[in-house]
Structures are given as C-alpha cells and as structure tokens.
C-alpha cells in the first residue's frame, strides 16, 4: 500500500477512534436517562477552607468575614457568579464534582429547581425566631432564608414629570406609546428579580384585576413590541439603564429607561446612601409584586459541612442578620427587626401589595412553562 494512503488511513482511524471509542451508546444513554437524585456525587476534597458560591452583590464585608474567621477559626473563600441564575447553573454543571460547600443567594423562584435536582443537603441550624413571611414559602431542612424583600417596579419621578407622563395605574399602561423604549427588565432566564417579577405577572394576569384584559404572555409581548430593554441581570437594568437610580452617576451608564424591576424598598436604599435624597419611587400595584426570599444552603457533596453550618448560623444570627438592610440592601429575616430610619431608608421604602397565590408547588410545576411562554412572548424578530 502506498505510504500516503497508509498515513491518511492512520489519521482517519486515529480521529474516529478517539471520538467514537470512548463514547459508547450505553454511556450516552446514561446521560439521557440521568435521574437527578441517583447520579453519583463525589464529595469535594477538603482543603480546610469553606468555599461559598454566591452572586456578585452578596454584600458581606471583609470585616464581617474576618469576624467569622476570628470566632470560628474557619477560613472563607468566595466563588462569585453574575447572579442567582449563575449560582444554579454552576451547581447543576458541577453537580457530580462540586466546587463549593455553601451557596448563598438562590431565591424562592430558583430554590425548587435546586431541591428537585438534589443539589442541597440538610443543614442543622434552627429556624426559630424567623419571620413568618420568610418561612411561608419553604420551611424544610435543605435551605434557610437569610434575607427577604418585595420585588416590584420602580420609576423615576423626575423623568416622568419632565416628560409630562402619568404614573401607570395598570401594567397595561406600559404598552402605550408614551412608554416606548423607556422601560427595562432583567431577564427571568438569568436574573432572580427578573424571575420574581415574571411570577408577579403570572399572579397579576392570572387573577383579578389583571385577568380582565389579557394574559401574561400577551402583556410581555406587548411591552417587548413597545421597545422594552431586556438585560441579563438586575445590575445591568438598574445601573446601566434606569435613570432614577444611582447608576446615573456611574461610568458606563446608558440611561433611557424611566422604569425598571427592583425592590419596593429600593428608593429607601437610594435615600440611605444619598443623604435622604432620591427621585426614584416604587409602583405598588395590586398583585404586581412578588415576595422574594433569598436562601442559603449546604451543597450536596460539600467537604466542609460543619464550617458551612457555622456560617449559616453566623449570617442568620440576630446580631448579623439584623444588619441585612445595610449589608445586602434587603430586609432581615429575624423577628423584631426593621429597616433603619437613617437618611430616610425606612421612609422611602414602600409596602408592597403582595398575594400568596404563587406557591413553591406552583413554581416547581410551572416555572419552566412560564419561562418558555416568556421567551416566546418577547421574541419579536
């Protein structure tokens, strides 16, 4: 046989065997039929450091972590993702060989997926003296709330006044021409406030008064047609596009959006950090808000289980958790705590009109469908 032909045969054989030999039909089928709770999980190798998977805004200061290390002797290392969606993605991706021991930041719209996929293991921290609102959604042993707040729409009062626009009294107002290109929403595919607001729209359009004039999908389609800006995370929406927030002073600010999704207490946070000044306010419409609870939980396959329990105990302790409004701009989950009065924090924080229609079961059963409906609705190309 000619040596050139031999060489070609050799390389063809080499390539095909390399890509096909290791991929038996059996192995591929096992991927398809993977049961989320039966797949083998390799316990992370202990290196004496508590590894915490969280998102980019979990505002635990270096001093606070130093205090934890002083009290317990446990070293802490953070692995940051962009948002709550990133936390879940990473937990799913590294499920069989986890990189972290503890997650902080999955909220009640993401938690059911994590539980369904057996990504969490039981913790041993007591949930006594937690607020009823924080325990209402999930009170099992796999996750513990560490902060809470109501997700709702925020708008820029000054911008509306300058443009002679009226404050919306229904979500349908946002589909009118005067709002064209002037609103931004974090995507529910990747952002937890985005997902929480999607749940709120399910509630709004699924019940009175919203259901009188269409459904959730048709509203999302209409706002998409009306030039709504969709971003991957809360930060991009609030900081880059929203004109009423602190982003207007930031490098890279784009502006243009007079309304966004944030928290009902976000105007209070603005005031707190700007000496009691804010031109942002929340839009409290019935059933257009969603009570968000953020959780911490031990990742299945964690190496530092004791240290993880200690950290959960630390951040949910009354001493630390009472400062959540300051640390993470969210409400504490401990009873008898409130937002600080300083600089109008509490004064500018509005009370949402939240229903309890969206339960964990409902999210567990329907979230994928809601997301698919949303994705189809906002597709306008």
């Amino acid at each position, binding site marked *: 046989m000619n040596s*050139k032909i031999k*060489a*070609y045969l*050799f*390389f063809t054989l*080499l*390539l095909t065997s*390399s*890509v096909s030999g*290791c*991929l038996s039909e059996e192995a*591929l089928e096992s*991927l*398809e039929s*993977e049961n989320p709770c039966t797949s083998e999980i*390799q316990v992370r*190798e202990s290196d004496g450091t508590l590894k915490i998977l969280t998102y*980019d*805004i979990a505002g*635990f200061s*270096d001093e606070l*972590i130093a205090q934890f290390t002083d009290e317990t002797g446990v070293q802490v*290392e*953070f692995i*940051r*993702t*962009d948002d709550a*969606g*990133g936390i879940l*993605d*990473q937990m*799913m*991706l*590294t499920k*069989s*060989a986890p*990189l972290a021991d503890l997650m902080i930041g999955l909220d009640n719209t993401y938690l059911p997926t994590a539980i369904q*996929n057996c990504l969490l293991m039981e913790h041993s921290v007591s949930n006594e003296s937690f607020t009823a609102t924080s325990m209402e959604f999930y009170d099992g042993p796999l996750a513990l709330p560490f902060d809470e707040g109501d997700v709702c729409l925020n708008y820029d009062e000054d911008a509306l006044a300058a443009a002679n626009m009226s404050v919306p009294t229904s979500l349908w107002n946002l589909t009118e021409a005067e709002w064209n*290109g002037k609103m931004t929403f974090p995507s529910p*595919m*990747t952002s937890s406030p985005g997902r929480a607001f999607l749940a709120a729209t399910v509630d709004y359009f699924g019940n009175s008064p919203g259901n009188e004039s269409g459904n959730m999908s048709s509203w999302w389609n209409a706002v998409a047609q009306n030039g709504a800006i969709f*971003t*991957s995370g809360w*930060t*991009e929406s*609030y*900081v*880059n596009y929203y004109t009423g927030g602190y982003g207007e*002073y*930031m*490098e*890279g*600010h*784009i*502006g243009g959006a007079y309304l966004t999704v944030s928290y009902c207490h976000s105007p209070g946070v603005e005031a707190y*950090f700007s000496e009691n000044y804010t031109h942002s306010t929340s839009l409290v419409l019935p059933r257009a808000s969603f009570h968000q609870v953020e959780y911490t939980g031990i990742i299945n396959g964690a190496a530092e289980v004791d240290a993880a329990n200690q950290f959960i105990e630390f951040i949910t302790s009354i001493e630390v958790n009472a400062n959540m409004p300051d640390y993470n701009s969210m409400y504490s989950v401990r009873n008898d705590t409130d937002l600080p009065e300083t600089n109008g924090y509490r004064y500018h924080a509005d009370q949402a009109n939240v229903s309890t229609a969206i339960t964990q079961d409902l999210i567990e059963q329907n979230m994928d469908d809601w997301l*698919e409906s949303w*994705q189809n609705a906002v*597709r306008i*190309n």
Partner: protein
Amino acid sequence: MILVAGATVKQRLKPSQSQVQKSFRTLVVAVFLIGTMLPFVYAFIRLKMVTGWTVWQALSGFDTVYGGSEALRFTLLEAFASSMLTVIIGLPIAWFLSRHQWKRIRLLRAFLAVPFVTPAIVAAMGFLSLIRQDGILTKIGIDLRLEEGVIGWFAEVSGWQHPGHFIALITAHAWFNLSLMIRFVEPTLSSLDPAWEEQLSMLPGGKTRISRLKNLWIPVIGPAVLCAASLSFLFSFTSFALVKWLAPTSHTLESLMAEAGSSAGIAGYRIESSELIYSVALLQFLILLLTLWITALLQKRYSERLSLLSEQGVRKHHGPPTRLAKLVILLGILFTLLPFVSVLLSSFQARKITNGSVKYEWTLEGWSNAWSGDLSTMGVGEAMSNSIIYALCTLLVALPLGWVLASTIFKLEQSGWSKSSKLLDLACMLPLAISALMVGLGVLLGGLRWYPEMFNWFLLPVYPHVLLTVPFVVRVMLPAYHSLDPAYAEQCKMLKLSPLRTWHHGTFMFLRGPAVVAGSLTLAFSLGEFGASWLLVRSGTWDTLSIVVDQLMSRPNFDPLIHPTAMAAATMLMLLTFALFLLAERFRAHDQRSGF
C-alpha cells in the same frame, strides 16, 4: 560473517534517525489533532444528546433560537462595518508609511502594531473611558454612550437604535485590526518599483488618478487590502470583550453564546440554552470556516508578489515624508495611543458626587485597592501571578507543539506531500475558526462529560490557551522555515557534525529569533485571553488579570473606587503585554512584517 549478520539484524531492530523523527512528528500531530478535536466532538455529542436535535435540525432551527437571527444580523453588520472602517483608517496610514523614508520606522510600526496584541479587555476599558461622561469625545459633543447631542439627533432622525454604541464598537475593532492593514499592505507598497507608476502615468491608461487607481493600485494592493479586511472581519466576528462592554444593548453570536454557555449541556435543565449553543455554534463555525477559506485564497493571491526592488531603494526614491504624510502618521499614532493613555489616567481618578454633580479627583486609592484585592475580587498581584503561571505553562506546551507542527508542514512540503501539508496547515488554523469562546465551551462541555473532577484542576485554562495560541506559533514559525537556507545544514553534515549540532548550527540558530517572537506572542495572547477563560471562570475559580478587570467592572459600582481599581488592573495587564511586545519586536527580523 556471523558478526556481519548480527550487525544487519541490529540495524534492522534499531530504527533509523529519520524513522524516529517521523514517528515523533506523527505522534505530535496526532496529539494536536486529538487535543483540538476531542473537546468539540464531545461537546457537540453532549449537546446533541441533551437537545435531541440532529446537526441538520440544529442548523435549520437557528431562526427559532431566542435572539439568534437578530444576533446574526448584528454580527454580520458590525463585522462588515468594522472591516470597512479598518480599511478606511488603515489604508492611508499604510500608504504613507510605505511611500516615504521615515526615521525610526521600526518604532513607528511598533506603535501602530501594538493594538493587535493588546488584551481585548484593556482595549474595551480604554474605549469605555474615552467615551465616558467627562471624556474627551463627550466634551467635543460626541456622546457615544448616552447618545445625546449630535449622536442623539442622528438616532432620532434615522430611527436607528444606539448608533453611538455601534460607532464605538466598530471604531474599537478598527483600532484593534489596524496593524493587519499595515502588515499586509506596507510590504507590497514599500518595495514596488516606482518605475511602474511613472511609466503608467505616461500611458493613456494612467493619465488620470482614477485610471491609475484602476490599472495599477487596485491590482497591486487590492489582494493585500482584501486579505487584511477579511482577517479583520474574522476577528470582529468573534470579538467578545469589546461587544460586551461597548455595545451592551446588542448581541453578537459570540456574546449570545457566552450568556447561555454556563447553563448549556446539562441533561434536563435549561434545554433552550443547549439548543441555542448547538445551533449558533454550528452556524458560526460554518461562517468562520468560509471566511478562513476566502482569506486563504486571498492570501495566495497576495503572496504572488509583484514587486521586486529593495525597500530601502524605493523609500529613498520617494524621499522624506510630506506634511500630509506626517499628519496622517501622527493622527494614526494618536489614535492607537489614546485608549492606553485614557486607561492609565482613569486609574488615578475617582468619582465624587456633590449636590448631584459628578467631579473626578486624583487618587492612588484605585491602585492600592487593586493590589490588596478583597473577598469578592482577587488582588492584582495574585491574579497576575495566576496569569503568568498560565502564560508560562501555555508557552511550554504551545511553542514546542507549534514549532514541531510548523516543521512538519515544512517537511511535508519539501517531500512533495503538498496536499497533506495544506491539510495540516488548515488543521492548525482550526482553533481560529472555532473562536475563543467556543474553545472554552468545548473544554467545558467536553471536559465535563469526560472527567468532571477536572473542574478542580488549577491549570485547566492552559488547555484552551494552548489551542488558541498554537495557530499563531505555526504562523510565525512556518515563514521562518521557508526562509531557511538548506546550504547551512548541508555544510554541517559535510563537516560530519553530530545530528544535534547539525540541527543547532543549521536550523536552530536561524529560528531562534522567530521562536522568541512566537514565544512572546504566545505569552501576550495567553495573558490577554478573555473569551475562553471568562466562560470557564463562570463555572470554576480560575481568575486571571483579564477576568479580574471584567469582574471589577461588573460589580455594582456605587463604590467610587471600583472604576479606578478596574483601570489599575487593566493598566497592569497593559504594561505586562507591552513588555512582551517590545521583546518580540526586538527579535523580529527587519523584513518580517507579515504573519503575526
């Protein structure tokens, strides 16, 4: 007789030197091909299993994936506009640089070439600080970020959403690819016989400027311009960091995949992400393969050199630069330097808000923060040492690998196996057709399928870095092999030097310079690599200096020190890359301007 027979048997048992070499080369080529193909094949098989789509379904279903068609339109538009702008800005610079006798021409070339090796994240930070609210451009009424003033008026009149972002993006791409135009066009023009131009101007077909353009300049420099433009299209098509930061309202195929990348390939979870990646990655691969093929055709035409005179003679003929030439080159250098200066200055400025108005104060706190780091973001020192470790490991693997591949391609050419050499050459360029992000994705999905524990491996980013830098090593080393004079090796053999000494004196001594260039570029590209590392970091803990800059800029920056801290980290990365580039330029042969 017995002894002789024994010796014959021994000779048969002991393979000859060329057989050992052949086996070694075969092994290296096999390792490279398997190492390149395996993660992608695994990744595609995984995506196929998760989505249940065939390759055809993935391609035909492209218009059903979320944001796909819009991203394709934007990618094609921005890549085309970027390559056009590269020609518009780069051609006059290349023209004047090649047609005059410049003092310190190597320095001028180095200034104009440095953007190409600049880490994309540094370029993004440079342009971002140039277009900020108190930036130079905004002060003269061109607000590319908030799109007020002239840009706002244009947006309103044209109905085009965010033209400012688009302009910023294509300008940054043109800045990045400027050196391509110079490296391709200048060698052709600077050695073109001036007599051609003079003779043509006396003929009927060369009386007017337009006729000379048609009959001389387009045929002479057209292929080089098209070649540079097609490479510029390729790099703009796969650009990620610049799109992420300068055009946040739009998606390219690359940024669309980046967003969905971390949730793709997981059975029973976010299937729409896997569908998106599967479909977009296949389409992007086909488009890039087509672009590479067109580029290779153009390069072939470009390599058919028309010129024949020494560069110095031609330059002498044209004489010293005119005022216009000086102005164009000065503007070109200012254009290349502005983003660097802007990053440096921004690292010393912190925002202060007083009564609703923003002022900037000079401070060193950004630098101090960047060095110390915090629990959220790694300090610059640690990130830099990570980057350097990754870059050195990449160098250790990519340089010898690329070198052996280049020598194998050369050997195949010499032995008359031209088709095989071309095939291997094309295979070496494949990682470029796959894009950095897809390389990262391949490692992520392919690797996860095969060996999930590797996500705990510190050196994982070295793998995609090697895949991405080997094509550059091959592109630098192959021309060096072509310019080798075989007479030296033959003389060494005649002197009966050992094979090692023959290789040392006849080959290595002449390839030392190009090897340093290839090595420095490998280090520089590894240091600045963003796409693949970014995707891996989202799923792991491999922080590099590029990633730290991005992480800092992604943080909610109510802290006024976040911006100067990010700029300080970007400045460190910029300085590190400059040092390597200067090293490469010192060893680059005077006439070696093409390639990379």
